[in-house]
Structures are given as C-alpha cells and as structure tokens.
C-alpha cells in the first residue's frame, strides 16, 4: 500500500494514515510506503504516529518505508534523528512496482475520512 501525504502533516493526518493502513496490517507481511514527496511541514506528533505505524508493521514481519522524502521532510527527519530509524526510498513509483502494492491514495488535509479507491 502506498499513501501520499499532503503538504502539511500534523498528528491528524498521521492518525488518518494509521487508520488507512490498519486494513493492510491484517495481511501477512504487510508492505506500506508513506509517500512524503509533497510534504512541506511535518510535526513531531506526526512523526510519533509514523513511528508507531512502523512498529506495528514490523510486528507483523512487514515492510514500512518513507518514500520520495521531500527536502523539507528530510530536514525534519535529520533534525529529530529519525532518518536513521525509518527506511527511506528515493523513488516511490519504482519501489511500488517492485513491491506490487495497492493503488495510491491520498491522505486528505482535513480530518474528513474519504473512502479508499479500489
């Protein structure tokens, strides 16, 4: 599963992301990519939620990546030293092909939960 984050990522968007991937966690060895290519701002609450998602995916013996990390997101990850915690992918498209994940979806800016496209 690949989920693309919006420009501003707060705890709200991160928790929506966690809800979205919860279905993936029922699969054996889930594979999740958080696409950060559009991210311009991300706060510590969001990073904590992403960390919890990473832990949960790893518990299921799965794979969790941050893909196409924008320069802004990369700077915050380095600042908080979380760049050494997550596995980073330079390109999302190539990685999603290799991992054969579900269709890309978009985590909305607002807290409204939208149905996932099939």
């Amino acid at each position, binding site marked *: 599963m690949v989920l693309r984050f919006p420009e501003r990522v707060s705890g709200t968007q991160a928790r929506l992301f966690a809800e979205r991937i919860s279905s993936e966690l029922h699969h054996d060895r889930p594979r999740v990519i958080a696409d950060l290519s559009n991210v*311009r*701002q991300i*706060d*510590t*609450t969001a990073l904590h939620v992403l960390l919890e998602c990473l832990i949960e995916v790893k518990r299921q013996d799965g794979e969790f990546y941050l893909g196409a990390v924008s*320069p*802004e997101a*990369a*700077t*915050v990850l*380095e*600042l*908080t*030293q979380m760049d050494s915690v997550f596995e980073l992918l330079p390109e999302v498209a190539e990685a999603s092909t290799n991992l054969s994940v579900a269709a890309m979806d978009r985590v909305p800016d607002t807290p409204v939960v939208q149905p996932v496209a099939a």
Partner: protein
Amino acid sequence: MYIGAILTLAGSAYSTSSRFMSNSRSNLLLLGKPIPLWDVLGKSLLNRLIERLHVFGVDRVSVIFEDARSSPRESSASGALTRRGGLFWSEWDSIVSQYLRDGMETLILARLGPYAEFDLADLLRAHQQTGSDLTQLYRSDTPLDFVVVRAARLREREGSYRNRLSSLLPQRRVYAMEGCFNPLSNPNDFRRLVLDAMLGRCSIRPVGREVEAGIWLGKNTTIDASAILEPPVYVGSNSSLGPACKALGLSSIEKNCDIDAGTTVEQSCVLEGTYLGMGLHLQNTIAGNGRLFHLEREIEIEIQDSRLIGKPSIHHSVTRAARSFMSSVLSTRVAQAASVDTRVSEKRPQR
C-alpha cells in the same frame, strides 16, 4: 568637522524600489529578519558598523528601514536611541534637513547589504583631499552602497534632498576598497561570514572571553559539565548548553539561547533567542526565529513545534533546574549508599 550618517536597511526580501546608488541586489531576509540585524558572534553587523562610525568620528547615526511600516532609529555619539515614524523618503529628507540645520559638513550614506571592510579614515581623508562632492566606495568595478557627500552641495540646490543627491552622482569620485568582502546575498554567505570571523579571516571579533584556545564564551553562559565544545566554537551571553550537548564543526550559538539535553549542533549557526529541544541533531543549518535554513539543500522551513525549535522560556529553565536538582539528589544518595556498603563490608569478619 560634524559628520552625520544615515544607514538604510531593506525591509523586505524582494524590494522593487529603485536604487539610486548602485545596482546591487536588495537585502535578503534571513529567517524573517534582515541579515544586518542578526548577531554575528555576539553583535549585529548594524551595531558593529555604528560603533565603527563613532570610533572614526561620526557624530550622529540614523537608521531607517526601507519598509515604510518600520520606524527609524537614531544614535548620537552618546549611544542614545530615538525613534521616528513615517514613509521612507520623507523621513530620509527630514533627517538630512535636520543634520544640515545642525551644521553637518559631511554626510555618509550607506545601505546595509554586503559586508565590506575598508579603511574609513582613509576614505574620509581621500574625500576631503580630492575636494570631491561625492565619493563612492567601489569593489573592483562594482559600486557599493556607501557614499560620502559634501553637505554644502546639498544646501545649494533646489528640490528634494534625494534629487540633489542624484544630481551629484555623475561626478562621483571612486574609492576602491581592499579588504574582506562578503556579498551577504544568501544564508550561505552569512554562514561564510561567521566562519571567517571564527577563523580570524576578517576583523569581526567574538564578543566574550576566549576561555580556551578557540572557545569563546559570552557572559553568564551555562555549559553543563558533560557538554562537549569542539573549538573553534562560540557561545553567546546568557546561553546554556544542557547535559550531553555537543557543539562541533565551527558552530556558533548566539546569545540568549537554550540548547536542551542531548542535542548536537554541528557546522551550524544558532541565532539569538533560540530554544533547541532535546535529542536533536542540527547539522549544516542556520536556526532561529522558529525557522531553519538548511545550507546544503538551500531550503527554509518553519518549525511550528516549539518542542523542536522555539524561544527559551521560564518553563525550560525550571525543567532544567529540576533535572539538575534531581541529578544532584540521586548522586548524593548513590554516594551515601556506597559509603554504607563500604562500612558494612569493613565490619564483616574476614573468612
């Protein structure tokens, strides 16, 4: 000789106002503030220039922001500051008029942008000896925003003082500067100036005391015993570094900063009044005013999470004091327990 100076500061990054003195680029804002207003090793470039002007005999210095919403400041030789308000050009004319009424003979005009080191006394001397009406500072073939004007010529002509000044430009004399120069056109230039100052490659000197070779500390700094300072490094007055902090790679931490426990500042500048949260690694970055500029990626980002970057608060100092207190209580208890164990083992009979 009565010498007056008017220093102008660009108020916005992309000013489109016409430049009557040179074609140099407008001042860039660094993390939301004009570069000359940020401290470089304890003192802003603006204040360093004002001090230098006073040392070389300038009697009055006025500072005007090109942004019409900002208020100009004035500094007399005694250092007193006054404020005025109003639009830039009308205020500029007003200041020139006041200087002329007070008997000013020589007027220095400077627009703070690039950092340039030159012999000001020699420039004033050359201006006087050549009998020039207007002498402009040049670097190679590039005019800089620093001119010296014979005040008498401003009294003679008609129209606004700005127009009278413009009429003198075609006959300007050139004074070629030789010395340290930094265009200060982007944050990397600012970082380069800080490095040059720390390495003694320009005349900027740190404000503080060199406690060890290459380690300068301002007044009332608090450096935890476990913190590591790798020279050359500068920590400004009233700043604090918490437990297990590190300052590496030619880093500068200006005054009134609070670096929380476990944070590393590497090849970076922390501007005055900045709080850095716990366990961070600031590398190749300028931080301040709730923002970061990453020098390699050349991007600026706003950090709204004050737990990462913010302003020092009473909360931080209370928390730090509490941690320090608990640490001392625990170490005392450990020492007490160790001494009890020692006494018990001494009393046990040898077998």
